[in-house]
């Protein structure tokens, strides 16, 4: 191979690049910088750039999944409302049978349940769909480059639509019940954000692990059921847990997310400051470690899925 000659020609060309007037259409603008890629990955800055360049893709994939989810179904998008609503009815009936409702004001138990179910179901559908996303989108991963983390983001958006629709239903229920709403409700987005970040963090871990070992797929549904008991979804934390246990339980960021969300909308007791701090820290740790682990797996993902 005539590499030496080739390099010389090229070197000459580069040297005279500024003065030479090229005779062809390649005079558009300054050619972009040469960007290098090697075995070591691209670094944080480049990763964020890539993510930004492909920001529309998370949305496009989410739109795809929403469309596909409800195509050829009779009830269509109303399933998004039916799922939390039916779950709510089941628990109202269940605790009605037992005769002991795990909440301060049994008359508001329906609202309390629904306000817990909304963030929880957002979390679970993001995690259960997202943890399989690398495997399910194998045909894309092996054929085209894009930041793989988008496959974690897009299930969050898909489930976010269900969440927003559910929120409308919750608002309707509150109006119907005549439940008062205070200024606290303006804080609700913060707790929603906590839930969303927790979901992404958990999904990053599980999606990467599932790509390596498919065992994860079998564990996730079970773990989510367990998580529903640990998080105050069907009960009100301060009604059945002691203050100490509540503090420990806030290691699970979803506990604080749900408690806070309920506080903002329904005026239940607010989570203590220490609980919020513990939850935020554990959430961020989970996120950083999850993104780090995902990045590790991402480097070989196309060879392994």
């Amino acid at each position, binding site marked *: *191979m*005539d*590499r030496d000659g*080739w*390099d010389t*020609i*090229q070197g000459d*060309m*580069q040297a005279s*690049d500024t003065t030479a007037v*090229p*005779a*062809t*259409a*390649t005079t*558009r603008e300054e*050619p*972009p*910088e*040469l*960007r*290098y*890629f*090697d*075995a070591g*990955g691209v670094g944080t800055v480049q990763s964020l750039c890539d993510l930004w*360049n*492909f920001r*529309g*893709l998370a949305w*496009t*994939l989410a739109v*795809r999944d929403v*469309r*596909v989810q409800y*195509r*050829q179904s009779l009830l269509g998008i109303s399933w998004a409302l039916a799922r939390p609503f039916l779950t709510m009815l089941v628990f109202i009936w269940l605790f009605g049978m037992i005769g002991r409702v795990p909440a301060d004001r049994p008359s508001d138990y329906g609202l309390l349940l629904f306000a817990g179910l909304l963030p929880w179901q957002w979390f679970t559908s993001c995690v259960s769909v997202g943890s399989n996303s690398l495997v399910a989108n194998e*045909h*894309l*991963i*092996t*054929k*085209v*480059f*894009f930041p793989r983390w988008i496959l974690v983001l897009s299930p969050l958006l898909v489930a976010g639509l269900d969440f927003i629709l559910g929120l409308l239903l919750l608002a309707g229920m509150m109006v119907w019940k005549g439940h008062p709403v205070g200024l606290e409700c303006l804080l609700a987005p913060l707790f929603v954000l906590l839930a969303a970040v927790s979901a992404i963090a958990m999904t990053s871990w599980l999606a990467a692990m599932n790509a*390596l*070992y*498919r065992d994860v797929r079998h564990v996730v549904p079970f773990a989510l059921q367990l998580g529903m008991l640990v998080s105050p979804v069907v009960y009100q934390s301060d009604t059945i847990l002691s203050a100490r246990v509540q503090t420990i339980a806030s290691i699970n960021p979803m506990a604080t997310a749900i408690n806070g969300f309920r506080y903002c909308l329904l005026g239940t007791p607010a989570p203590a400051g220490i609980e919020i701090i513990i939850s935020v820290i554990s959430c961020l740790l989970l996120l950083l470690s999850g993104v780090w682990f995902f990045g590790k797996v991402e*480097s*070989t993902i*196309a*060879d*392994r899925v």
Partner: protein
Amino acid sequence: MPTGFKVLTDAITIEGLGKSFRLGTDGGRSVLRRLLGRDARETFWAIRDIDLSIGVGDVLGIIGRNGSGKSTLLKVLSRITRPTEGRFGVRGRVGSLLEVGTGFHPELTGRENIFLSGALLGLDPAAIRKQFDEIVAFAGTEPFLETPVKRYSSGMRVRLGFAVAAHLDPEILIVDEVLAVGDLAFQQKCLGKMDHLARGGRTVLLVSHQLANIEGLCNKGLLLDGGNVVHFGDARDSVAKYRESVSVRSHAAIAQREDRTGNGKVRVHSIVEIDADRKIDSPCDAAPAVCTSHAWEVVLEGHDDCDHLDFALIVHTQRGDRLVTLFSRWVGTTLRHTAPQTRFRIQVDDLPLVPGEYRIDTWLTVNEQVADYVEGALPLRIAETDRLGHGFTPDPVKHGHLWVPHRFIVES
């Protein structure tokens, strides 16, 4: 052909690039072994020690046998997978088209899929909206825009997929063997589009088995073999080198071939084409000008005597489409093997193939168990003779591979 382009600067530089894979399966016991640090799986280098510099505006054709590392190289350059060693640099955005219709979802309509596939290939929705009508016109699938892609014919899917990709506008376009699909007219359209891109100063990397396309479209050629660069330079030289290497390989004595399957009880020791003795009463006696007879002599070898041998020659095109099988069982011949060697002949009085290059597999069974199967055991060349007697030679691509005697009867 984009000649006259000067190398202003390099669009891609590749330095000592290599990519290896571990052979064997993941999971289960291998997990344990890796934890114990005893991962003894074999390493396989798909590409190694690649050093190249591709100039802006170059159209590089990448050729090589299956498994020579072409696709791995494209995957590394399009950042689908990371290199194991070395590095590469690219100038500008890279668009890659490794499959037609990347990301198409069967449940979604043509319109929705245009946006989906476009987004995956790196086009933002605004750019797609701007070019939407052009894309649809290029694909020619306008009446089906609101139909789910699952109801498209495969041809329509291909056209739509390529139409989206053709409207990508990256500085560097990477295209894997995607032109092998689609009809001829559409292929021409795609080639035209790529030529246009190259003229606009884009750098194109193209893998194709259709050597004529490489020669026609590319100014640079890269020939890979076993993951290494065999030739890098003028496209025509690369193609010539490749043609040479292919014919050398297929002329390698069949006895030396390692890439064969079967239990090996009896193996083909040699097969050579010989002059056929023309049978006087052959049906093509009537029109000798259009008859081609072929004959092969086969020598089998094996340590033990065997009854119940069956032998087949499978004739296929360069692309691997099987055309005809000559099979001893069908014609009622039972072969026997007597150690150490058995010799027999196979004869076809008229092989109705149009002129061109074909390949032959040999297939041998003992007691209905495959004993020896060699793909591409020998080439078959049908020379360009004036079969019809009026100077017209049928072309395999345009007219099909077969020539059958026929008559037109006009009632007067």
